[in-house]
């Protein structure tokens, strides 16, 4: 199907409201209406979507506050499903859950007042990449405009192919101008796409290239591939938002779509301030220039949360189709699930676990399934990675949203309340987390000549496990009862936790850590541990080794600034200082 322009608002059918119960509105007299079609309700044209059809009765979910809406109020069909306007102007923008620009809206958000779509008068520098007469198929690039620091490629719409019958010469164009004509079909800079429908790609490919997040515990222990999916469950205050914001700022993707779904307004203001002021080290522009923010805070209408998740993935898929690596970050998917539950309970649907609708699992699966690395219709390599926070009620990880999400994601970073309480940040639990991408990424590292990556990772994982087990023993019997080499394992666990895994998001030096610095810290830690084990094997008492001043390696992450050789040397010096002390024991 071609979706090149939003169908006109024909207002051909007018029904009337019969029942209002919060966001659930029942309507009669809308003959011929189809599922998922959008409606305007009442005198203020509140946006709603058809969610069920029974006989002549239509149920709709309203995306806005329905206060004052009454039986008898008119209902108008819009003849199209919930759609996002895709085109240049998304990057750097802030939108609500229905992708309506918030930058243009007032201080207080009143129902029924915002308009979707970008600013059509904004000008762009167009450069054609095809000539008249070229043969193209859907997804092929016709030309591009510069959006922030990105080449925004204008593609042949899905379902259209043939020869380029007309193409505009290079120059300024606006959002409403046509830039080409393919097989007679005019193509502009933007088009509408129904958000619940995944955008097509030529084929799925294996997600086998790492997404560098800049967070050591992720990159070293629980890595994520481009085109993969991750979830971050954790009780309140365990650090979900901080971790997601760090990844949004520093991961090496091309485009970030950040969805604040049912969370705090102050947090959105905060992340906006940061993204607008931080310079992107890769492009020299602002981080905001590669970011699209969908802000749907907890006090904004609940049902828009449900839509915001789909709108965000659609935007990411659009940039994927241009051949970019896009990342969707959603904080928090639990608020989306709660919106599903809230609406289902109003419609009287039979509840499954904890009141959630039986369709919860399939809705979660379908959402995470929109992640993937693909060969695009135009033949490029692109990806959508999805990272979602999960906020389990009462911190109970067996609750339905957490339990189902774990099944559908490739990587899980579980945040642990005890670690957070001990101010060990990021509080990613090494026991409760996993990465199903680790093996393919090990192959990727090996393919680039780094066969040590997988070995070191395996060593750290097993070290942390053994250290935990021994710590329990030591608590029972006293550390003195353990043999020397086991005491070194305990020591190693501490070095890894404090010197490698801890990473403060507030640190000027360490908030972000590139792969080389990360590898240097890891190697330094393991070298020191090897030296300690060797010392004990030589007969040095464990207690003497434990008294060595390890501060230089523990503080190296905070003191060796930057990603260049200099910081690698500083880390090596810190390590050598400690190694010398260990050697000096005898």
């Amino acid at each position, binding site marked *: 199907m071609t979706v090149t322009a939003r169908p006109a608002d024909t207002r051909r059918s007018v029904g009337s409201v019969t029942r209002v119960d919060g966001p659930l509105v029942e309507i009669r007299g809308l003959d011929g209406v189809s599922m998922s079609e959008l409606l305007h309700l009442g005198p203020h044209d509140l946006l709603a979507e058809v969610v069920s059809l029974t006989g002549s009765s239509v149920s709709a979910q309203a995306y806005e506050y*329905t206060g004052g809406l009454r039986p008898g109020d008119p209902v108008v069909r819009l003849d199209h499903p919930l759609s996002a306007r895709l085109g240049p102007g998304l990057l750097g923008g802030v939108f609500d859950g229905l992708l309506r620009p918030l930058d243009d809206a007032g201080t207080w958000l009143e129902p029924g007042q915002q308009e979707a779509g970008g600013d059509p008068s904004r000008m762009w520098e167009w450069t054609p990449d095809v000539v008249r007469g070229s043969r193209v198929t859907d997804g092929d690039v016709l030309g591009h405009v510069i959006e922030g620091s990105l080449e925004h490629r204008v593609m042949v719409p899905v379902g259209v192919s043939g020869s380029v019958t007309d193409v505009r010469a290079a120059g300024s164009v606006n959002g409403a101008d046509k830039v080409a004509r393919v097989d007679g079909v005019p193509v502009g800079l933007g088009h509408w796409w129904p958000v619940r429908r995944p955008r097509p790609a030529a084929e799925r490919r294996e997600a086998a290239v790492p997404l560098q997040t800049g967070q050591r515990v992720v990159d070293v222990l629980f890595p994520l591939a481009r085109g993969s999916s991750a979830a971050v469950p954790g009780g309140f205050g365990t650090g979900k938002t901080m971790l997601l914001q760090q990844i949004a700022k520093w991961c090496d993707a091309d485009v970030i779509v950040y969805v604040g779904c*049912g969370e*705090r307004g*102050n947090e959105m203001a905060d992340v906006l301030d940061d993204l607008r002021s931080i310079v992107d080290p890769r492009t020299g522009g602002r981080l905001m220039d590669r970011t699209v923010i969908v802000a749907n805070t*907890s*006090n904004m209408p609940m049902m828009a949360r449900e839509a915001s998740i789909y709108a965000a993935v659609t935007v990411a898929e659009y940039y994927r189709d241009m051949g970019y690596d896009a990342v969707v970050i959603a904080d928090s998917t639990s608020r989306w699930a*709660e919106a599903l*539950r809230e609406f289902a*309970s109003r419609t009287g649907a039979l509840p499954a676990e904890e009141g959630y609708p039986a369709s919860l699992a399939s809705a979660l699966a379908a959402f995470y399934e929109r992640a993937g690395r693909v060969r695009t219709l135009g033949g490029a390599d692109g990806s959508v990675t999805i990272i979602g926070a999960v906020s389990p009620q009462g911190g109970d990880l067996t609750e339905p949203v957490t339990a189902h999400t774990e099944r559908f994601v490739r990587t899980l970073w579980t945040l642990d309340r005890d670690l957070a309480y*001990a101010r060990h940040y990021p509080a990613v639990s090494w026991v409760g987390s996993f990465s199903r991408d680790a093996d393919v990424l090990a192959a990727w590292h090996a393919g680039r000549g780094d066969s040590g990556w997988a070995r070191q990772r395996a060593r750290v994982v097993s070290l942390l496990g053994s250290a935990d087990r021994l710590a329990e023993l030591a608590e029972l019997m006293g550390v003195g009862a353990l043999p020397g080499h086991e005491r070194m394992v305990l020591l190693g666990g501490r070095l890894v936790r404090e010197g490698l895994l801890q990473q403060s998001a507030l640190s000027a030096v360490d908030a972000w850590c590139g792969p080389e610095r990360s590898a240097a810290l890891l190697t330094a830690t393991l070298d020191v541990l090897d030296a300690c084990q060797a010392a004990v094997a030589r007969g040095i008492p464990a207690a003497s080794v434990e008294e060595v001043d390890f501060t230089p390696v523990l503080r190296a992450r905070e003191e060796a600034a930057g990603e260049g050789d200099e910081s690698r040397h500083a880390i090596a010096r810190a390590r050598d200082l400690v190694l010398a002390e260990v050697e000096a024991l005898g």
Partner: protein
Amino acid sequence: MTTGLAWPRVERLGAAELRGPLLVMSGVSGVGWDEFARIRTPEGPDRHGLVLAVDRDLAVVEVLEGTEGLRPEDTRVSFDGAPLRIPVGESWLGRTCNGRGEPVDGGPPVMGDRLVPVAGLPINPVRRQPPAEPVLTGISAIDALTTLVRGQKLPVFSVAGLPHLELATQVAAQASVGGEPFSVVFAGMGLTHPDADAVRDALEERSAGDELVLLVNTADDPVIERILTPRIALTVAEHLAFELGRHVLVVMADMTSYCEAVREVSAARGEIPGRRAYPGYLYSDLASLYERCGRIRGMPGSVTLVPVLTMPGGDITHPVPDLTGYITEGQIVLSNEVDARGVYPPIDPLGSLSRLMRRGAGAGRTRDDHLDVAAQLLAALAHAQQVRSLADLVGERALGATDRLYLRFEEAFYRDLVDQRKDEARDLGDTLDRGWTALSVLPRRELSMLDTAQIAAHYSPAEGSS
């Protein structure tokens, strides 16, 4: 009622059904969802209600004063034609009202510049200004360790029997913002009469100075009315802040009582209960209150929120504290252990956190050394607690010399810094100096989070400890 009358649009005699706090009217058409309604009976004062659902000619109304004593045949309901609105303006300052906003101070009804819906409108997140300046409370444990920031929501989590209401009242009485216009809106929900009187007395001065709006729903007032109390409080506060440019502190106590009212309505509607029978939408309902704080770009005022709640059975995973914690920006936790030390306020510093403190305290906001001192105090306290549990196992004498000093630090920390009188307002300089006094118990080498200049300026070890 202080709502300033809009002409009733629809009026009808005779209820079709009465069930719990709900009243169902039939034969009414043209009634809108969330509309405000008045209920008249031949005897007794008018009651008030909100429309929970409309279905053809049926309207389900939640009666704020409860349905007790209503008879279907002589109940008359008139619908306002609009959601509940209240007048807003400076005239609220100095007034004392019940939980529905009706004066109980003997004065005339509160009048205002205009009517505003109590549901409020969401603030456009793009227009929000990240909070960055402190509200000083004069309470050392809060100011030093969990600084309250203008525009923040920072709840007090407590357990039955602890002095959370005293603490909240003390915050309300003492809070200040360095000379800028400041007001307090105190919303009491389910308070006992002695508690309500204590609050009134402690805030007497604020009230006399026209800096206070007091709304109190007592334990024997209608339960459902509590659904309205915080909304009225916030509507008044938003206007004082964002139109009149004042910094407004809103204290809401006890949110657990509020949530019980929400649960009661949900049960009466036969909704599917979630955890502990609270409705699934409790998160969004609480968020619709808590998110009404903040700052707005280019406007002078702010709304800062301190909700107070008791954790039933001391359980922090109970839905009320749990969902609150998921919305607010940190928490101040009161603990029985600290209370047992005879310390007031019994704040557990390690369990407490102000997430916005890093922006609202420190150089240019409070004092240069503030954030480092706070971090050092908490790190030392965490270590002291480990030492204490070790000491409980092996005995204090088996501890090393440094560890014994940590135990002395812990004592000094609670005695010199945390403990204070219920009417004592400490200035921030005094508070931070007291932090240094406690730290000075420890040898200098233990203070790794403080830099040399700070140590030189403030560290004064007692003899024999360095």
